[in-house]
């Protein structure tokens, strides 16, 4: 599998990364190199091996359902670029 320049543009847009035309070709080469590695891994016979979803062999830790977090809005919002009426402000979003 290899990516076209359009694929790279699309991936960059989905990740909200601005990539210049020069960078585009370089990114394409690098991404395709990674995909080649994945192809090599795919070629390994994994019959009978359970798929792994986590690098470590452990299970999810569960906590009791209790409210433990205090209201720290002021501290959180002190580092926000803009707030109004307790809301974080972002550029207008139109759907």
């Amino acid at each position, binding site marked *: 599998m290899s990516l076209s320049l359009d694929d790279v543009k699309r991936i960059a847009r*989905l990740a909200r990364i601005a990539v210049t035309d020069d960078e585009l070709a370089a990114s394409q080469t690098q991404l395709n190199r990674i995909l080649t590695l994945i192809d090599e891994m795919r070629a390994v016979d994994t019959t009978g091996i359970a798929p792994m979803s986590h690098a470590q062999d452990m299970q999810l830790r569960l*906590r009791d359902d209790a409210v433990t977090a205090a209201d720290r809005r002021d501290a959180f919002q002190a580092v926000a670029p803009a707030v109004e009426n307790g809301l974080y402000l972002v550029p207008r979003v139109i759907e």
Partner: protein
Amino acid sequence: MKWEVVIGLEVHTQLTTQSKIFSGASTAFGAEPNTQTAVVDIALPGALPVMNKAAVEKAIQFGLAIGAKVNRRSVFARKNYFYPDLPKGYQISQFELPVVEGGAITINVDGVDKVINLTRAHLEEDAGKSVHEGLHDGTGIDLNRAGTPLLEIVSEPEMRSAAEAVAYAKALYSLVTWIGICDGNMQEGSFRCDVNVSVRPQGQAEFGTRREIKNLNSFKFIEQAIAAEVRYQIELIEDGGKVQQATVLFNPDTGETRAMRSKEDAHDYRYFPDPDLPPLVIGEDWIERVRSALPELPATMQTRFVGVYGIPAYDAVTLTASKALAAYYEATVAAGADAKLASNWIMGDISATLNREEKDISASPVSSEALAGLIKRVMDSTINNKTAKDVLRKMWDEGLAADAIIERDGLKQETDTGAIEAIVDAVLAANPKAIEEYRSGKEKALNALVGQVMKGSGGKANPAMALELLKKKVG
């Protein structure tokens, strides 16, 4: 051409936990903006999610209640997209291995049962809320809702009409509120439906292209939105057009659906297992513990009601619309009311009055014992059915027992034959024509006179007795 409609539902149910799915912040509705957020919810770098045990337990409850497979091992995945109300840039959800797989719910439309199969149910976190009004500039973000636990319940595309889709949504709603995993508050967004709709020529095996109606939060809107969408798709195809896969919004004011985003710029979520969360493992003992604590489910209760109380299946379904209503019915019967009469009164006058006053059965001013007291007076012919309706209204308004009102207002049915006879005589004297008709074989001619006897007695005559006397006298 005849068209067949194909519908599948994705329902987001908000789980009734105290704290969020991955943080210790409160999930209470209506707090000041951003006062219920922890470092995980606002996505501060390095903050790690820790799973809420109660959210998992509620997912297990649901899985058991619909006869689904509860996966002993399930995996959390990142669903990547950018939106200001999702500060991490991804939503933690489940993709390849959800916590619940399969299961089914039985719906009933026009007296016919139909089994709707479920695909899956998975745990995920809710996003925050965007506020567009009342600000000087830009959009405001409130992250109180971010991280609220959701169970997304996905059905197979097995519904074939808006009525079936609504029946499914209602059955699901009844179930999740019954087992208590969701508070069912639709205004607050605790139960939100996405509806996938497509059409195909009758007899065609392949599905048509579907459009997804997002975020419907009332049963009425589900029905209206599907009707509008089906109309749109059929017209489009009949005019030679082609349905494009899209996400649409329903506008209740115009009754129309409007495309939000088309397939070309549809999200590509690039799911992958979340490295912050190892697999969720659910042990056999936990499942058994949950199973033994499950309440009697609506379907089981309906069968019992039909068997034990001898009421029709329709009554049993209506009376088990909620746990509270079912309990009210059982308490009414336990207090001595006839099972079918109790059902009639609860489905009739009681429900109608509650609806009118927008009250829940738990807030009924007439208790189950009080209702039984009224029904018993109908059973022993102290009052007739029509008087009983008036008595109920007074019980409702004044909070008195049926006996007290009957006594105070002198409503006891007249069973003294002599008193009624006099009235019957007077009515017959005034209606010679009806007597003629009856004698010439028109049986029903006298029925019309019963009303006049009732009127003459101030509603206190027993209608059956009045008819009996009329017949005897005309002979």
